[in-house]
């Protein structure tokens, strides 16, 4: 029987699967439900300085090749979030599942402020979301668009908190390896890649975009080949551990993600098909594949496709 446990930074995870940020929000009971179903770690939905209601419906559409969403960073604001994260952390600790807290901010200083507040909840890692594609009308170009601004955010968060930090990168940049290098130089402990891909779907009968926000982030199966390419480029450029996220919906998908160099595998849109039970299914499929192909541990797969 393949061993799916994984050591990541200072943490020991029961499986390499991480609930991706933005899926199922921040409620303790939903985070715990995912842990029960087999998530090795949980990422909370991105939290910013102020409460946000998010965009109006339609906010999410499942179509044949995946999902497109523009939820609009719905969150209760950093201060409220701390209480939720504390409760979630308490319950997850009991299950031996680490909590990653995702943060965003509209300004460079804002990232530092939110990180400082969120650190009070003592998450096991802070994931810095510099790449939400759905709020550019309010916040301007994401910090993920240039290596200089990504590095500046990393430096600011690093200055404020001593907790491990992972920077979440966007796929829509010319050289994602350069982005990874820039944030690694500023003291990031890990990299999460990738965020969703900015996209648009049109309803021909309505002759207009289906999302109220007009554009949204593409996820699900259509995103997987892009994510694999991005993670491969990052793994070839830096030695930081990578949380590889994007379109992973089966055990084989997860094996592919490990083989391009990911240490952990984010699961998000796949929950659309099976609900949180998807964690158990993917874990079983990965274990079966490893048994069949003769791998005993996840680290035996890591980076194998890069050689």
């Amino acid at each position, binding site marked *: 029987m393949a061993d799916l446990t994984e050591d990541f930074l200072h943490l020991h995870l029961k499986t390499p699967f991480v609930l991706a940020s933005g*899926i199922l929000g921040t409620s303790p009971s939903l985070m715990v439900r995912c842990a029960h179903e087999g998530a090795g770690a949980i990422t909370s939905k991105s939290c910013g300085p102020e409460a946000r209601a998010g965009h109006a419906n339609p906010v999410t559409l499942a179509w044949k090749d995946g999902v497109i969403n523009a939820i609009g960073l719905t969150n209760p604001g950093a201060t409220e979030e701390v209480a939720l994260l504390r409760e979630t952390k308490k319950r997850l600790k009991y299950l031996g599942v680490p909590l990653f807290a995702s943060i965003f901010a509209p300004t460079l200083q804002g990232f530092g402020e939110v990180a400082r507040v969120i650190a009070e909840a003592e998450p096991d890692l802070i994931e810095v979301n510099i790449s939400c594609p759905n709020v550019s009308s309010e916040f301007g170009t994401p910090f993920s668009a240039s290596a200089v601004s990504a590095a500046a955010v990393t430096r600011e968060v690093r200055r404020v908190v001593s907790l491990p930090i992972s920077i979440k990168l966007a796929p829509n940049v010319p050289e994602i390896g350069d982005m990874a290098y820039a944030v690694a130089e500023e003291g990031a402990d890990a990299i999460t890649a990738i965020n969703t891909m900015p996209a648009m779907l049109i309803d021909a009968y309505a002759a207009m975009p289906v999302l109220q926000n007009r554009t949204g982030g593409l996820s699900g199966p259509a995103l997987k080949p892009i994510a694999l390419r991005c993670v491969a480029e990052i793994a070839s450029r830096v030695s930081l551990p990578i949380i590889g996220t994007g379109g992973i919906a089966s055990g084989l998908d997860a094996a592919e993600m490990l083989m391009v160099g990911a240490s952990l595998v984010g699961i998000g849109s796949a929950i659309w098909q099976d609900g949180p039970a998807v964690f158990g299914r993917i874990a079983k499929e990965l274990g079966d594949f490893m048994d069949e192909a003769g791998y005993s541990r996840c680290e035996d797969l890591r980076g194998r496709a890069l050689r």
Partner: protein
Amino acid sequence: MKPKGLFSVFTVQEVRCENAYTRTLIFDSPLLDSQPGQYVMAWLPGIGEKPFSISDDDPLGLTIADVGPVSRALTKLTLGERVWVRGPLGRGFTLASHSHLLVGGGYGAAPLSLLAKRARQQGHPVMVALGAKTKDDLILVSAFSAMGCQVFLATEDGSAGIQGLVTGAMEQAVAGGCPETLYACGPNGMLMAVAAFAREKKLPAQLSFEALIRCGVGLCGSCELPEEVCNKLGIPTGFLVCHDGPVAAIV
């Protein structure tokens, strides 16, 4: 119904006035493979998208109360106008026996009408208890009667049926003998009272919850049933109304 993209496009064929602020839109074609208690997301391009339970499936019928900008625009639609629909979504009611008590609070009557239709098609006896603030707030009463259901009413001001809450009408319904299964839809407070009643009578019950549904596909987490409601009703916590529900069976 136009061929399926992300949404199916339905055309309004008939508008029934249920009360001063509620309309049932009857569309031009059926909603295939739908189960009573499931819902659809109805989109008016440029205006917005909201969840509505399916009050009839062949042809599709949606009973809509004017409570906000999107539902207002829907209730103002006229014959020949179009609505973009995705669904059926979620898990609905299952006819679990041969005699049924349906309990609807306010708009909760809407999904029960398709359930009543299915039960009556199989020749099962159906009792329906409906509650609302006043006589003018009740909906679908004649629709249930026309299907051959035995209808019991309660209004808070006593203007129709007994004076009080729908639980009173429910008590009245079972006075002459208890059906085998209970189904209810309405606000959480009402559903808690119905659940307590079901437990006391040892009746299996299926409850349909109302919630703020945003994504409709179990991803955003907006519609989670409050933990204290889950704990009181013995439903696993982290229950997503859009995906795990809207119907939950309790024993």
